[in-house]
């Protein structure tokens, strides 16, 4: 991460704009592994000021996948904190950032449907967007979860 991902200007700029970054070297401070229940590195944890964890990633991420993780973290933090005013905008950002990422694009679309639903109460829109996940990514984890719509229609 330190050799490739963090030196990328778009990554550094994104972190500085949206996060307060904290870094622990697990060799110098092995106790942090227990503190964060993290047996492996790199481990990335996004939490709020109250210490509530909103997303965790284990393993190396290249710059595009890192940025996808970070925008999904911001989106999940907004949803988890019932911030339905900001969530739809973050959802659009997540969809754009994760485009072409087979691991994250289906998740971004899934949560974008939830964000829109929470903001509008429009269940038809929720089901329509979940249909997109099922149609485009039927074998993905999020496609399987969205397939729930097939039973409620």
């Amino acid at each position, binding site marked *: *991460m330190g050799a490739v991902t963090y030196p990328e200007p778009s990554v550094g700029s994104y972190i500085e704009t949206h996060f*307060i*970054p904290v870094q622990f070297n697990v060799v110098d401070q092995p106790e942090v592994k227990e503190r964060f229940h993290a047996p492996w*590195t790199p481990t990335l944890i996004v939490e709020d000021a109250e210490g509530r964890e909103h997303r965790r990633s284990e393993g190396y991420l290249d710059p595009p996948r890192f940025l996808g993780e970070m925008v999904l973290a911001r989106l999940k933090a907004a949803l988890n904190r019932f911030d339905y005013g900001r969530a739809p905008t973050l959802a659009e950002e997540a969809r754009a950032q994760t485009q072409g990422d087979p691991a994250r694009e289906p998740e971004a679309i899934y949560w974008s449907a939830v964000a829109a639903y929470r903001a509008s109460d429009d269940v038809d829109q929720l089901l329509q967007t979940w249909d997109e996940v099922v149609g485009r990514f039927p074998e993905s984890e999020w496609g399987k979860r969205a397939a729930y719509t097939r039973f409620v229609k």
Partner: protein
Amino acid sequence: MAEVKWRQDLKAAREEARGQGKLVLVDLFNPH
């Protein structure tokens, strides 16, 4: 602006995050 200014104090980082309305990103890394 590109270089990330990593903090080492989580408690202070949370206070900073609260003041700026931001989230905290924690990175656990092994330099080897």
